[in-house]
């Protein structure tokens, strides 16, 4: 059986495409890059990752300009068919701006960029994204963002991950990551692609990538 093809999106200013592709490989998937101006996902795409970074320099609003590019129409169609989509940090912002996830990511309450290792609590064990971890279990994954405070109606989404301990950014309900009600589209501010190896301090990010293939 051949590995699941995972499209890793690249917009101008996307930064984490290489580490996201490595993470896909690490769980046995086959990463393929897709670009902002493409009108279709690569042949045979089974799942999509929108990696972090500063697409279009975060100008206007983070994720706003990327969400209006041709490739995002293809991602919408993929999601509408029940295909999995994982948006990380700027990818989460892009998913909100494109309407695939509810709400919007606003500036951190401190109005500064914060880079920190975080404990994330599994808030909903019923989605595929946390690999069967029980509610309350904790994942250690770093976050680093300037606009990470999710603002929206938690009733329109499933809250998958919450910051354990104090709220670092003023997000509603300490939300760190949500999925759509269908569960196939997931966005989170922390960076699971940077928690894949013992050498870098944590492997807790693997479950999110493994979920792309299940």
């Amino acid at each position: 059986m051949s590995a699941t093809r995972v499209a890793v999106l690249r917009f101008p200013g996307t930064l984490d495409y290489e580490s996201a592709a490595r993470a896909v490989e690490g769980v046995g998937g086959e990463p393929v890059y897709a670009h902002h101006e493409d009108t279709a996902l690569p042949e045979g795409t089974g799942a999509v990752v929108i990696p972090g970074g500063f697409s279009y320099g975060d100008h206007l609003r983070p994720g706003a300009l990327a969400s209006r590019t041709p490739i995002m129409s293809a991602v919408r169609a993929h999601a509408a068919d029940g295909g999995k989509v994982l948006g990380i940090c700027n990818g989460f912002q892009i998913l909100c701006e494109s309407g695939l996830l509810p709400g919007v990511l606003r500036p951190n309450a401190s109005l500064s960029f914060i880079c920190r290792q975080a404990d994330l609590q599994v808030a909903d064990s019923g989605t595929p994204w946390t690999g069967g971890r029980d509610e309350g279990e904790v994942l250690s994954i770093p976050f680093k963002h300037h606009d990470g405070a999710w603002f929206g109606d938690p009733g329109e989404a499933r809250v998958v991950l919450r910051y354990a301990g104090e709220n670092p950014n003023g997000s509603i309900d300490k939300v760190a990551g949500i999925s759509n009600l269908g569960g196939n589209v997931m966005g989170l501010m922390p960076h699971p692609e940077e928690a894949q190896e013992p050498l870098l301090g944590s492997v807790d990010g693997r479950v999110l990538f493994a979920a792309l293939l299940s």
Partner: protein
Amino acid sequence: MTLVVVTVMPKKGVLDPQGQAVQGALAHMGFGDVSDVRVGKRIELEIAGHDPAGQATKMCEDLLANQLIEDFHVEVPG
């Protein structure tokens, strides 16, 4: 070519952390008489073709404002 001015402001009732921060800083600097500071964007565009205001409104709906948290306003000065 017509100059069109688009204003995008945080919706009333939506928390505006930037406005709050500016207000706090102003108060620290001795500008105590200030309240209700709100910070938004002003976007100036030159638009060719007809109905520049209509075009700009479409741009706001499609891109320039996020209507979940922002209101916009289009103005053609002069």
